[in-house]
């Protein structure tokens, strides 16, 4: 209460708990998202991400705990008014045109007609849908539909944006466009709450990530710190012009395991720097050309797997 004035949290969640019948879907989930942050909410399927988003967007009620959106209780009209939502499996109205869908959303947020038209126009252009704006959404491709649905979340110019797996199953162009738009929105100071199981996406977009597993938060930190805290294995990735037997590589000093990935090998090691030198020397000595060589630290994906796999291994 007392800190309403200088409150710089866009989302505050404490001890949020939700049961479906007997099943505990989320268990005392707590976290805070600062205004202007892009917050990644990561977790395997069934972890409780969508349940959390639905509570925060006022679509379902929690059984206990508190969720505040810009200090308003989640579900309150004032909270909804400043929120844009892209639900996990949402569609546009397929019998209406893309243009009508955007105007409909704008009207539901009480945006004045002139402004609504202007924003719809701008968004349709930005989303690459302007030429098809008067066609029924039925006739759109999946990527076009998903871009439109993002537009529907943005047309009210929300301060806080909830996106539930926005790029899952999208074609490369649409998902790139979406990432670029999210980065731009973040530069404009919007707060973005993004659930995903795409670690690259989280790594590129998020200031802060929370990892949820089986309804419980298991880690909250910056992607970089999560990565560094993971006692994962370092590795060197290398590809050659010409063929090399993996057994040969396995015998090089410092290599603990060799994995073949398409046209390259990944060599796990505790001493990646030394191994890189060894590899270069070896190639020179046998006259092999190196096409590419990369030293890899544990990825966010490694962090994610190590934080969630114990619970996950029996699945």
């Amino acid at each position, binding site marked *: 209460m007392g800190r309403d004035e200088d409150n710089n949290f866009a989302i505050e969640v404490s001890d949020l708990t939700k049961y479906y019948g007997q099943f505990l879907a989320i268990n005392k989930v707590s976290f805070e998202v600062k205004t202007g942050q892009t917050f990644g909410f990561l977790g395997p399927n069934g972890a409780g991400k969508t349940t959390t988003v639905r509570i925060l967007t006022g679509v379902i009620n929690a059984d206990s705990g508190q969720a505040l959106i810009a200090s308003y209780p989640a579900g309150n009209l004032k909270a909804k008014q400043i929120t844009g939502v892209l639900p996990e499996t949402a569609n546009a109205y397929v*019998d209406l045109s893309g243009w009508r869908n955007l105007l409909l959303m704008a009207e539901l947020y009480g945006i004045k007609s002139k402004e609504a038209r202007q924003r719809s126009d701008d968004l349709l252009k930005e989303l690459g849908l302007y030429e098809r704006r008067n066609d029924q959404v039925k006739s759109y491709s999946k990527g076009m539909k998903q871009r439109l649905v993002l537009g529907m979340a943005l047309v009210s110019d929300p301060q806080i944006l909830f996106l539930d797996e926005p790029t899952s199953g999208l074609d490369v162009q649409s998902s790139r466009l979406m990432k670029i738009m999210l980065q731009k929105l973040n530069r404009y100071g919007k707060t973005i709450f993004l659930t995903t199981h795409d670690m690259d996406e989280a790594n590129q977009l998020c200031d802060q990530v929370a990892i949820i597993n089986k309804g419980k938060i298991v880690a909250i930190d910056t992607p970089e710190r999560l990565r560094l805290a993971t006692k994962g294995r370092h590795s060197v990735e290398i590809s050659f012009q010409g063929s090399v037997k993996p057994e040969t590589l396995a015998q090089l000093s410092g290599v603990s395991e060799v994995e073949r990935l398409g046209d390259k090998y990944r060599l796990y090691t505790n001493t990646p720097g030394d191994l890189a030198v060894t590899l270069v020397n070896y190639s020179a000595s046998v006259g092999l050309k190196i096409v590419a060589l990369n030293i890899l630290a544990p990825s966010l994906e490694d962090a994610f797997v190590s934080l969630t796999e114990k619970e996950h291994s029996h699945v």
Partner: protein
Amino acid sequence: MSELVRFQQQFRRSLTIARKDIQIYYAKGPVIIYGVLMPIFLFLAFTIGRSLPADLMIPGLLGMILFFTATAVSPIIVPWEAQARTLERLMSTPVKLETIILGDILASFIFGAGISIVPIIIGLTLGITIASPGILALAIILSSFCFAALGNVFSTPPTNTPATVNMIAAGVRFPIVFMSGVFIPLDELPIWGQNIAFISPLTYFIDIARNLMHGQGHLPLVIDFLAIIGFTAVFLIVAMKLHRRTMPRRI
């Protein structure tokens, strides 16, 4: 923000929702099937061969068409939206649950009130006179809203299959039509038949229409109107209460 401003704001958003429903549903099957084809076939089936005078027949036809059309889409909008995966986003916008429900009812109401012009024109060409067009218009507006609200009650079970809801709705629609004095004027029904008729809102609309077209109804107009308003209030309250419980289970 004052309550009044908030109320106006939500009401405007209800109208937005109603317009969306109309744009989506006017061309779809239910309106045409339940609003036009069904009443006409039913009516022909029951009146051919009987010599009911037009001023008794047209009120029944009007009531039946109004009833079928106003209840044609309101039962299926919510399950349809849930199935089409548009409901969750609608629920996340700054509108109250009541605003959504009212919007859906308004759309259905407009279909019902709009199509009632057809049987009225038929009646006029058959030489019917309407004692007081203003009162008839008021009765059509109130009743269409009442029936639309009833239709919405049918959509409260948490099923997302429009066909299931249609079955539930049909199971109520047909009995209502048969017990409301559509084919047989109330005065000619036995007492037990009249008692059953009084639990149907359609009865009161048809009674008003007979009063205005035939010159004589069974009940005073005021009673008819009060009954329709009372039914509307009950349907609205039941719809809102039940939807509040079942809506979150749809997504």
